[in-house]
Protein backbone atom coordinates (compact mmCIF):
# COMPACT_ATOMS: atom_id res chain seq x y z
CA UNK A 1 0.00 0.00 0.00
CA UNK A 2 2.59 2.45 1.16
CA UNK A 3 4.92 1.31 -1.55
CA UNK A 4 2.20 1.67 -4.15
CA UNK A 5 1.63 5.28 -3.10
CA UNK A 6 5.32 6.05 -3.22
CA UNK A 7 5.55 4.62 -6.72
CA UNK A 8 2.54 6.60 -7.81
CA UNK A 9 4.03 9.78 -6.36
CA UNK A 10 7.33 9.15 -8.06
CA UNK A 11 5.57 8.57 -11.32
CA UNK A 12 3.56 11.76 -10.92
CA UNK A 13 6.65 13.75 -10.10
CA UNK A 14 8.49 12.27 -13.05
CA UNK A 15 5.64 13.23 -15.32
CA UNK A 16 5.61 16.74 -13.87
CA UNK A 17 9.33 17.09 -14.43
CA UNK A 18 9.07 15.81 -17.96
CA UNK A 19 6.20 18.20 -18.67
CA UNK A 20 7.90 21.17 -17.02
CA UNK A 21 11.15 20.38 -18.80
CA UNK A 22 9.40 20.29 -22.16
CA UNK A 23 7.59 23.54 -21.40
CA UNK A 24 10.59 25.63 -20.55
CA UNK A 25 12.95 23.99 -23.04
CA UNK A 26 10.47 24.39 -25.88
CA UNK A 27 9.84 28.01 -24.86
CA UNK A 28 13.57 28.69 -24.88
CA UNK A 29 13.96 27.11 -28.30
CA UNK A 30 10.94 29.02 -29.51
CA UNK A 31 12.21 32.41 -28.48
CA UNK A 32 15.70 31.69 -29.74
CA UNK A 33 14.99 30.03 -33.07
CA UNK A 34 11.50 31.07 -34.15
CA UNK A 35 12.65 33.97 -36.31
CA UNK A 36 15.51 32.06 -37.93
CA UNK A 37 13.34 29.06 -38.72
CA UNK A 38 10.55 31.25 -40.10
CA UNK A 39 13.05 32.99 -42.36
CA UNK A 40 14.27 29.60 -43.53
CA UNK A 41 10.69 28.58 -44.31
CA UNK A 42 10.13 31.93 -46.01
CA UNK A 43 13.16 31.44 -48.23
CA UNK A 44 11.81 28.03 -49.21
CA UNK A 45 8.08 28.76 -49.56
CA UNK A 46 8.14 32.46 -50.44
CA UNK A 47 4.97 33.01 -48.48
CA UNK A 48 4.77 34.56 -45.04
CA UNK A 49 1.59 32.86 -43.85
CA UNK A 50 2.77 29.43 -45.02
CA UNK A 51 6.14 29.99 -43.36
CA UNK A 52 4.54 30.84 -40.03
CA UNK A 53 2.25 27.80 -40.26
CA UNK A 54 5.18 25.54 -41.05
CA UNK A 55 7.12 26.81 -38.03
CA UNK A 56 4.14 26.57 -35.68
CA UNK A 57 3.59 22.98 -36.80
CA UNK A 58 7.26 22.20 -36.29
CA UNK A 59 7.11 23.45 -32.70
CA UNK A 60 3.88 21.57 -32.02
CA UNK A 61 5.59 18.45 -33.32
CA UNK A 62 8.60 19.17 -31.14
CA UNK A 63 6.41 19.38 -28.07
CA UNK A 64 4.98 15.92 -28.70
CA UNK A 65 8.36 14.49 -29.67
CA UNK A 66 10.14 16.00 -26.66
CA UNK A 67 10.25 12.85 -24.49
CA UNK A 68 12.14 11.12 -27.31
CA UNK A 69 14.59 13.95 -27.94
CA UNK A 70 15.49 15.33 -24.50
CA UNK A 71 18.35 17.49 -25.70
CA UNK A 72 18.56 20.93 -27.19
CA UNK A 73 20.88 19.87 -30.01
CA UNK A 74 18.65 17.08 -31.19
CA UNK A 75 15.61 19.29 -30.76
CA UNK A 76 17.10 21.90 -33.09
CA UNK A 77 17.91 19.23 -35.67
CA UNK A 78 14.33 17.98 -35.33
CA UNK A 79 12.99 21.50 -35.88
CA UNK A 80 15.12 22.07 -38.96
CA UNK A 81 13.98 18.90 -40.66
CA UNK A 82 10.37 19.56 -39.64
CA UNK A 83 10.63 22.97 -41.30
CA UNK A 84 12.14 21.49 -44.46
CA UNK A 85 9.49 18.77 -44.65
CA UNK A 86 6.71 21.20 -43.85
CA UNK A 87 7.89 23.65 -46.53
CA UNK A 88 8.17 20.86 -49.03
CA UNK A 89 4.64 19.59 -48.44
CA UNK A 90 3.37 23.17 -48.47
CA UNK A 91 4.87 23.62 -51.94
CA UNK A 92 3.51 20.24 -53.04
CA UNK A 93 0.02 21.16 -51.89
CA UNK A 94 0.25 24.48 -53.68
CA UNK A 95 1.28 22.74 -56.90
CA UNK A 96 -1.43 20.10 -56.59
CA UNK A 97 -4.04 22.76 -55.92
CA UNK A 98 -3.07 24.53 -59.10
CA UNK A 99 -2.94 21.27 -61.03
CA UNK A 100 0.30 22.01 -62.79
CA UNK A 101 3.93 22.35 -61.95
CA UNK A 102 5.00 25.89 -61.30
CA UNK A 103 8.54 25.94 -60.02
CA UNK A 104 8.47 29.40 -58.53
CA UNK A 105 5.35 31.40 -57.90
CA UNK A 106 6.00 34.29 -55.58
CA UNK A 107 2.85 35.83 -54.14
CA UNK A 108 2.11 39.50 -54.52
CA UNK A 109 3.87 40.61 -51.38
CA UNK A 110 6.92 38.57 -52.14
CA UNK A 111 6.92 40.01 -55.64
CA UNK A 112 6.86 43.47 -54.09
CA UNK A 113 9.74 42.75 -51.79
CA UNK A 114 11.61 41.18 -54.69
CA UNK A 115 11.14 44.45 -56.55
CA UNK A 116 12.99 46.15 -53.73
CA UNK A 117 16.04 43.94 -54.06
CA UNK A 118 19.00 45.20 -56.04
CA UNK A 119 18.88 43.85 -59.58
CA UNK A 120 21.91 41.64 -58.95
CA UNK A 121 20.45 40.03 -55.84
CA UNK A 122 17.06 39.68 -57.47
CA UNK A 123 18.59 37.74 -60.33
CA UNK A 124 20.12 35.26 -57.87
CA UNK A 125 16.92 34.87 -55.82
CA UNK A 126 14.82 34.32 -58.94
CA UNK A 127 17.30 31.79 -60.31
CA UNK A 128 17.18 29.99 -56.95
CA UNK A 129 13.43 29.59 -57.45
CA UNK A 130 13.99 27.76 -60.72
CA UNK A 131 16.40 25.05 -59.60
CA UNK A 132 15.39 21.75 -57.96
CA UNK A 133 13.79 21.76 -54.52
CA UNK A 134 16.52 19.61 -52.94
CA UNK A 135 19.26 21.76 -54.40
CA UNK A 136 17.52 24.90 -53.18
CA UNK A 137 17.19 23.45 -49.66
CA UNK A 138 20.83 22.45 -49.49
CA UNK A 139 22.07 25.78 -50.87
CA UNK A 140 19.93 27.80 -48.45
CA UNK A 141 21.09 25.73 -45.48
CA UNK A 142 24.69 25.97 -46.61
CA UNK A 143 24.96 29.61 -47.66
CA UNK A 144 22.31 31.33 -45.61
CA UNK A 145 22.05 29.23 -42.43
CA UNK A 146 25.80 28.41 -42.57
CA UNK A 147 25.24 24.81 -41.52
CA UNK A 148 27.97 22.21 -41.84
CA UNK A 149 27.64 19.30 -44.25
CA UNK A 150 26.91 17.04 -41.29
CA UNK A 151 24.11 19.29 -40.01
CA UNK A 152 22.61 19.58 -43.48
CA UNK A 153 22.72 15.79 -43.80
CA UNK A 154 20.75 15.42 -40.55
CA UNK A 155 18.21 18.07 -41.53
CA UNK A 156 17.59 16.78 -45.05
CA UNK A 157 17.99 13.06 -44.41
CA UNK A 158 20.64 12.88 -47.14
CA UNK A 159 24.06 11.31 -46.67
CA UNK A 160 27.04 13.63 -46.30
CA UNK A 161 28.23 12.63 -49.75
CA UNK A 162 24.83 13.42 -51.24
CA UNK A 163 24.82 16.82 -49.49
CA UNK A 164 28.17 17.60 -51.04
CA UNK A 165 27.15 16.57 -54.55
CA UNK A 166 23.72 18.22 -54.31
CA UNK A 167 25.37 21.48 -53.23
CA UNK A 168 27.82 21.34 -56.08
CA UNK A 169 25.19 20.47 -58.68
CA UNK A 170 22.98 23.19 -57.17
CA UNK A 171 25.70 25.81 -57.63
CA UNK A 172 26.15 24.76 -61.24
CA UNK A 173 22.38 24.85 -61.85
CA UNK A 174 22.12 28.24 -60.19
CA UNK A 175 24.97 29.60 -62.25
CA UNK A 176 23.31 28.28 -65.39
CA UNK A 177 19.94 29.83 -64.49
CA UNK A 178 21.57 33.18 -63.85
CA UNK A 179 23.37 32.99 -67.17
CA UNK A 180 20.04 32.24 -68.91
CA UNK A 181 18.22 35.20 -67.39
CA UNK A 182 20.98 37.76 -67.90
Amino acid at each position, binding site marked *: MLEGTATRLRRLRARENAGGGADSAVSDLYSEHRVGLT*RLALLLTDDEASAQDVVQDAFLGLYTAWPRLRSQDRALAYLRSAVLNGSRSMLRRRRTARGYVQPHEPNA*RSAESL*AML*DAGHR*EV*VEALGRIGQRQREV*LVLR*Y*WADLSEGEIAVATGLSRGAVKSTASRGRVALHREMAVSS
Partner: protein
Amino acid sequence: MSEVDPDDTAERLRAALTARVALMPTLPDPLPPPAGPGSGVRSLGDTDPRRVADYQLVGRLGAGGMGVVYLARSPGGRLVALKVVRSELRDDASFRRRFAREVAAARTVHGAFTAPVLDADVEADTPWLATAYVPGPSLAQWVDEHGPMRAAQGWVLGAGLAEALTAIQQAGLVHRDLKPSKRHPGGGRPTGHRLRHRAGARGRDHHRVRVRRRVAELHSAGTGPRR
Protein backbone atom coordinates in the same frame (compact mmCIF):
# COMPACT_ATOMS: atom_id res chain seq x y z
CA MET B 1 27.52 25.59 -71.04
CA SER B 2 29.14 28.73 -69.70
CA GLU B 3 32.15 28.77 -67.43
CA VAL B 4 31.23 27.72 -63.92
CA ASP B 5 32.81 29.60 -61.08
CA PRO B 6 31.31 27.96 -57.98
CA ASP B 7 33.04 30.30 -55.54
CA ASP B 8 31.62 33.37 -57.20
CA THR B 9 28.16 31.76 -57.41
CA ALA B 10 28.33 30.85 -53.73
CA GLU B 11 29.33 34.38 -52.72
CA ARG B 12 26.63 35.94 -54.85
CA LEU B 13 24.07 33.54 -53.36
CA ARG B 14 25.19 34.34 -49.82
CA ALA B 15 24.87 38.08 -50.46
CA ALA B 16 21.51 37.75 -52.22
CA LEU B 17 19.99 35.59 -49.47
CA THR B 18 21.19 38.03 -46.82
CA ALA B 19 19.65 40.92 -48.75
CA ARG B 20 16.43 38.96 -49.25
CA VAL B 21 16.14 38.19 -45.54
CA ALA B 22 16.80 41.83 -44.67
CA LEU B 23 13.61 42.73 -46.56
CA MET B 24 11.53 40.15 -44.73
CA PRO B 25 8.96 41.14 -42.14
CA THR B 26 10.17 41.25 -38.55
CA LEU B 27 7.70 38.44 -37.81
CA PRO B 28 5.80 39.60 -34.76
CA ASP B 29 5.36 36.80 -32.28
CA PRO B 30 1.72 35.76 -32.03
CA LEU B 31 2.00 34.43 -28.49
CA PRO B 32 3.97 36.48 -25.97
CA PRO B 33 3.21 40.21 -26.00
CA PRO B 34 5.60 42.01 -28.31
CA ALA B 35 7.39 44.19 -25.81
CA GLY B 36 10.77 45.68 -25.23
CA PRO B 37 12.69 48.43 -26.96
CA GLY B 38 11.72 49.16 -30.54
CA SER B 39 8.33 47.45 -30.33
CA GLY B 40 6.49 50.64 -29.37
CA VAL B 41 4.91 48.81 -26.41
CA ARG B 42 5.58 50.10 -22.89
CA SER B 43 4.61 48.38 -19.67
CA LEU B 44 1.49 49.32 -17.74
CA GLY B 45 1.77 51.96 -15.02
CA ASP B 46 0.21 51.87 -11.55
CA THR B 47 -2.72 54.01 -12.63
CA ASP B 48 -3.50 51.98 -15.74
CA PRO B 49 -6.44 49.58 -15.51
CA ARG B 50 -5.68 45.88 -15.81
CA ARG B 51 -8.93 44.95 -17.52
CA VAL B 52 -11.46 46.73 -19.72
CA ALA B 53 -14.65 44.79 -20.44
CA ASP B 54 -13.45 41.35 -21.57
CA TYR B 55 -10.00 42.58 -22.52
CA GLN B 56 -6.90 42.01 -20.48
CA LEU B 57 -4.44 44.87 -20.87
CA VAL B 58 -0.89 43.96 -21.74
CA GLY B 59 0.95 47.23 -22.31
CA ARG B 60 0.67 50.86 -23.39
CA LEU B 61 0.95 51.79 -27.05
CA GLY B 62 0.47 55.52 -26.74
CA ALA B 63 -1.59 58.39 -25.39
CA GLY B 64 -3.38 61.26 -27.04
CA GLY B 65 -5.78 64.04 -26.21
CA MET B 66 -8.71 61.64 -26.15
CA GLY B 67 -7.31 58.80 -24.16
CA VAL B 68 -4.74 56.10 -23.85
CA VAL B 69 -4.22 53.32 -26.37
CA TYR B 70 -3.36 49.97 -24.81
CA LEU B 71 -2.21 46.69 -26.22
CA ALA B 72 -4.77 44.18 -24.94
CA ARG B 73 -5.70 40.57 -25.29
CA SER B 74 -9.21 39.37 -26.13
CA PRO B 75 -10.63 36.37 -24.21
CA GLY B 76 -9.50 34.24 -27.18
CA GLY B 77 -5.96 35.55 -26.92
CA ARG B 78 -6.04 37.87 -29.90
CA LEU B 79 -4.02 41.07 -29.57
CA VAL B 80 -5.96 44.29 -30.10
CA ALA B 81 -5.29 48.01 -29.82
CA LEU B 82 -7.70 49.28 -27.18
CA LYS B 83 -8.37 52.99 -26.95
CA VAL B 84 -9.72 53.97 -23.55
CA VAL B 85 -11.20 57.42 -23.07
CA ARG B 86 -9.62 59.70 -20.46
CA SER B 87 -11.47 59.67 -17.16
CA GLU B 88 -11.86 63.50 -17.22
CA LEU B 89 -13.84 63.20 -20.44
CA ARG B 90 -16.29 60.48 -19.54
CA ASP B 91 -18.90 62.88 -18.13
CA ASP B 92 -18.58 65.28 -21.02
CA ALA B 93 -21.72 64.71 -23.09
CA SER B 94 -20.45 66.47 -26.20
CA PHE B 95 -17.25 64.46 -26.09
CA ARG B 96 -19.25 61.23 -25.78
CA ARG B 97 -21.23 62.18 -28.86
CA ARG B 98 -18.03 62.92 -30.75
CA PHE B 99 -16.50 59.62 -29.67
CA ALA B 100 -19.62 57.68 -30.69
CA ARG B 101 -19.48 59.43 -34.06
CA GLU B 102 -15.84 58.51 -34.51
CA VAL B 103 -16.55 54.87 -33.71
CA ALA B 104 -19.50 54.77 -36.09
CA ALA B 105 -17.37 56.38 -38.80
CA ALA B 106 -14.50 53.99 -38.26
CA ARG B 107 -16.85 51.03 -38.56
CA THR B 108 -17.86 52.10 -42.06
CA VAL B 109 -14.32 51.95 -43.45
CA HIS B 110 -13.41 48.66 -44.97
CA GLY B 111 -10.08 47.91 -46.46
CA ALA B 112 -6.96 45.93 -45.99
CA PHE B 113 -4.99 49.11 -45.30
CA THR B 114 -6.73 50.44 -42.24
CA ALA B 115 -6.95 48.75 -38.86
CA PRO B 116 -10.54 47.45 -38.64
CA VAL B 117 -12.80 48.13 -35.65
CA LEU B 118 -13.35 44.90 -33.73
CA ASP B 119 -15.46 45.99 -30.81
CA ALA B 120 -16.49 49.13 -28.96
CA ASP B 121 -18.67 50.34 -26.13
CA VAL B 122 -19.52 54.01 -26.36
CA GLU B 123 -22.12 53.74 -23.59
CA ALA B 124 -19.80 52.30 -20.95
CA ASP B 125 -18.77 54.32 -17.87
CA THR B 126 -15.44 54.69 -19.59
CA PRO B 127 -16.03 54.39 -23.34
CA TRP B 128 -13.54 52.30 -25.29
CA LEU B 129 -12.77 51.19 -28.82
CA ALA B 130 -10.91 48.03 -29.89
CA THR B 131 -9.24 47.88 -33.29
CA ALA B 132 -6.96 45.29 -34.83
CA TYR B 133 -3.44 45.58 -33.50
CA VAL B 134 -0.92 46.40 -36.19
CA PRO B 135 2.42 45.27 -34.81
CA GLY B 136 5.61 47.04 -35.63
CA PRO B 137 6.93 50.56 -35.48
CA SER B 138 5.17 53.56 -36.98
CA LEU B 139 6.64 55.19 -40.05
CA ALA B 140 8.15 57.90 -37.83
CA GLN B 141 9.87 55.31 -35.61
CA TRP B 142 10.98 53.36 -38.66
CA VAL B 143 12.60 56.40 -40.24
CA ASP B 144 14.23 57.41 -36.95
CA GLU B 145 15.77 53.99 -36.77
CA HIS B 146 16.69 53.25 -40.37
CA GLY B 147 17.06 56.67 -41.97
CA PRO B 148 15.43 57.70 -45.24
CA MET B 149 13.74 54.96 -47.23
CA ARG B 150 15.05 53.95 -50.59
CA ALA B 151 13.07 55.32 -53.51
CA ALA B 152 11.53 51.95 -54.35
CA GLN B 153 10.33 51.46 -50.77
CA GLY B 154 8.93 54.98 -50.73
CA TRP B 155 6.92 54.35 -53.86
CA VAL B 156 5.47 51.11 -52.55
CA LEU B 157 4.58 52.83 -49.30
CA GLY B 158 3.06 55.85 -51.05
CA ALA B 159 0.89 53.63 -53.20
CA GLY B 160 -0.42 51.77 -50.14
CA LEU B 161 -1.06 55.04 -48.35
CA ALA B 162 -3.06 56.31 -51.32
CA GLU B 163 -5.15 53.14 -51.23
CA ALA B 164 -5.81 53.51 -47.52
CA LEU B 165 -6.90 57.13 -47.97
CA THR B 166 -9.09 56.13 -50.90
CA ALA B 167 -10.83 53.54 -48.71
CA ILE B 168 -11.45 56.21 -46.08
CA GLN B 169 -12.66 58.74 -48.66
CA GLN B 170 -14.97 56.21 -50.24
CA ALA B 171 -16.61 55.79 -46.87
CA GLY B 172 -17.30 59.53 -46.98
CA LEU B 173 -14.76 60.35 -44.29
CA VAL B 174 -11.72 62.49 -43.86
CA HIS B 175 -8.83 61.24 -41.76
CA ARG B 176 -7.93 64.66 -40.25
CA ASP B 177 -4.90 63.43 -38.37
CA LEU B 178 -2.59 61.76 -40.81
CA LYS B 179 1.03 61.85 -39.72
CA PRO B 180 4.07 59.61 -39.77
CA SER B 181 3.36 58.30 -36.27
CA LYS B 182 0.04 56.94 -37.53
CA ARG B 183 1.50 55.06 -40.43
CA HIS B 184 2.45 51.52 -39.57
CA PRO B 185 4.72 49.83 -42.03
CA GLY B 186 3.40 46.67 -40.38
CA GLY B 187 6.00 44.61 -38.64
CA GLY B 188 8.93 45.99 -40.59
CA ARG B 189 7.37 45.13 -43.90
CA PRO B 190 7.17 48.35 -45.86
CA THR B 191 4.29 47.10 -47.94
CA GLY B 192 1.84 45.91 -45.30
CA HIS B 193 1.19 49.38 -44.01
CA ARG B 194 -1.92 50.32 -42.22
CA LEU B 195 -3.31 53.43 -40.71
CA ARG B 196 -3.82 53.08 -37.01
CA HIS B 197 -6.84 54.63 -35.34
CA ARG B 198 -8.42 57.56 -37.11
CA ALA B 199 -8.62 60.13 -34.37
CA GLY B 200 -11.53 62.44 -34.91
CA ALA B 201 -12.71 60.95 -38.17
CA ARG B 202 -15.77 62.88 -39.38
CA GLY B 203 -17.84 63.37 -42.45
CA ARG B 204 -15.79 65.01 -45.16
CA ASP B 205 -18.16 67.93 -45.51
CA HIS B 206 -17.10 69.16 -42.11
CA HIS B 207 -13.38 69.28 -42.27
CA ARG B 208 -10.51 69.51 -44.61
CA VAL B 209 -7.76 67.00 -44.63
CA ARG B 210 -5.01 68.02 -42.28
CA VAL B 211 -1.81 66.39 -43.28
CA ARG B 212 0.65 67.49 -40.68
CA ARG B 213 3.77 66.37 -42.42
CA ARG B 214 3.96 65.13 -45.89
CA VAL B 215 5.04 61.52 -45.98
CA ALA B 216 7.00 62.48 -49.06
CA GLU B 217 9.37 64.53 -46.92
CA LEU B 218 10.51 61.38 -45.25
CA HIS B 219 11.98 59.72 -48.24
CA SER B 220 14.23 60.91 -50.94
CA ALA B 221 12.72 61.66 -54.33
CA GLY B 222 13.29 59.11 -57.02
CA THR B 223 11.79 57.17 -59.82
CA GLY B 224 9.26 54.40 -59.48
CA PRO B 225 10.26 50.78 -58.95
CA ARG B 226 11.21 48.95 -62.08
CA ARG B 227 8.69 46.18 -62.59
